[in-house]
């Protein structure tokens, strides 16, 4: 089978290695430019099931801020990001929100939970 050369930029960590990859079909046969073995996992993922962490906000009623930031517990399939955002947009929480609270369980049936990434205390009457 013919070898194909492709370039990737690994996004696993802030280093952002530029990867020169030789592929046979969808199998990595050679890689240059990676600083660690996570580069191989990244490219394999990009070829077969690209995923991304998604971070956004949900509405909160009665909190010190009108929003709570949320994130996917683990990366979700890239093609489903905008479906997920549409689901998250419908959610409204009531303060207090605690960091780690499950905002949506098993989002879109992916098995991945959506979690709050900070505390949103109740807004007191005084302030």
């Amino acid at each position, binding site marked *: 089978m013919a070898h194909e050369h492709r370039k990737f*930029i*690994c*996004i696993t*960590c*802030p*280093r*952002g290695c*530029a990867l020169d990859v030789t592929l046979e079909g969808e199998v990595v046969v050679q890689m240059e430019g990676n600083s660690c073995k996570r580069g191989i996992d990244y490219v394999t993922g990009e070829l077969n099931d690209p995923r*991304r*962490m*998604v*971070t*956004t*906000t949900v*509405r909160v009623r009665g909190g*010190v*801020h*009108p*929003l709570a*930031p949320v*994130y996917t517990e683990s990366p979700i399939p*890239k093609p489903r*990001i905008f479906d997920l*955002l549409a689901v998250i947009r419908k959610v409204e929480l009531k303060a207090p929100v605690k*960091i780690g609270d499950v905002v949506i369980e098993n989002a879109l049936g992916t098995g991945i939970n959506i979690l709050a*990434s*900070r*505390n949103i205390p109740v807004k007191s009457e005084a302030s």
Partner: protein
Amino acid sequence: MLKERYDVIVIGAGPAGLAAAIEAKKTGAQDVLVVERAQELGGILQQCIHNGFGLLIFKKDMPGPAYAQHFIDELAGLHIDTLLDAMALNVTSERHVYATSRTSGFLELDTRALVLAMGCRERTRAQIALPGTRPAGVYTAGTAQRFVNIEGFMPGKRFVILGSGDIGMIMARRLTFEGAKVERVLEIMPFLTGLTRNYVQCLLDYDIPLQLQHTVKRIIGNDRVEAIESVQIDKQRQPIPGTEEIIPCDTLLLSVGLIPENELSRKAGVSLDPVTGGPFVDEKMQTNVPGIFAAGNVVHVYDLVDWVTQAGLLCGRNAAQYAIAERKHHGRRVKMKAGDNVRYVVPHVLDKESLAESAQRLQMRVTLPIEEPVWVEVMNGEERVTRKTELYVRPGEMVNIDIPQSAYDAVQRASELSVRVVRR
């Protein structure tokens, strides 16, 4: 309840300030206070809701607020005082801090060691001299980030972003998530100024076009931004005629660099490096002013918060050690005071331990001549520490007296010694 004097006061409760306060307390500083302008701790991390934080320190990929929360919780467990919603107005080289807050009013605080952790702020339109009209709809990327992530409103629908810094690219993705269209990211340099991974996961993933060596030639619109005119530039950063393009949009975001925020540092006499915009520091993160330390983006702009935390830890440890030494030193020092018929005494201050090594010589001048025998007496209140005699004294002739090593115990009891010259 605030104290009047602290071992360590930290100005700014972002990642650098939180780390410095925590480490100062753990190192043994007794009283630590964090002064913060915002109504909550955490600094800019609270609006950085994206992930990518903590890989170095926690070996975990965390969102900004979660990273901050870790340190906020740790701080709370250490009984560190916090003063929120408070503005530090001035700091002096003697480490007096003047602050004001809605709840506490005007405050004057003293500290043995001071940590500057004010972070940085964004370059604005004025600082890059963008031509064109001055309509609504021009924001820095960080301001837009606060609007979208904390306050809950969108500053526009169609965006152009000038600058390929990390905040700009992250906002391009964020705005796309919230239904906006990001028409273009323009970068004046021939290279990306943010992290490459952000180019991939913020721009490439969402087909947001990036143009290097391009800038905004003109902002168009009267009440509101209607479009921007972009232009390509050559190696000398001169616009290339004929490459202009009108890009319709309603909002222009600027992600054109960060500047360490050092107005307070200047007031305290801290010298700044014109290249970084931050204080000159030594390996302890101490500035040129003894007892004033600095850490984080106030020193130079970092690209990873983990490194800011590490700088804060280092700085906090050294600030605490300075304060502890200062406190110990303070109890060991005795002031020399001019008593009857003495104009001044040198040295002004004496380390009590110095007598363990040798006798200590005091030198002075009298106020008035006495042409008959006198006692030169070193007193601790009514207790005489030592004395000698002179046949006469005159203002023009310096008088010496040695405190002998045998006076060690007497000196330990004193907080102040006075020297007097009296008739026998």
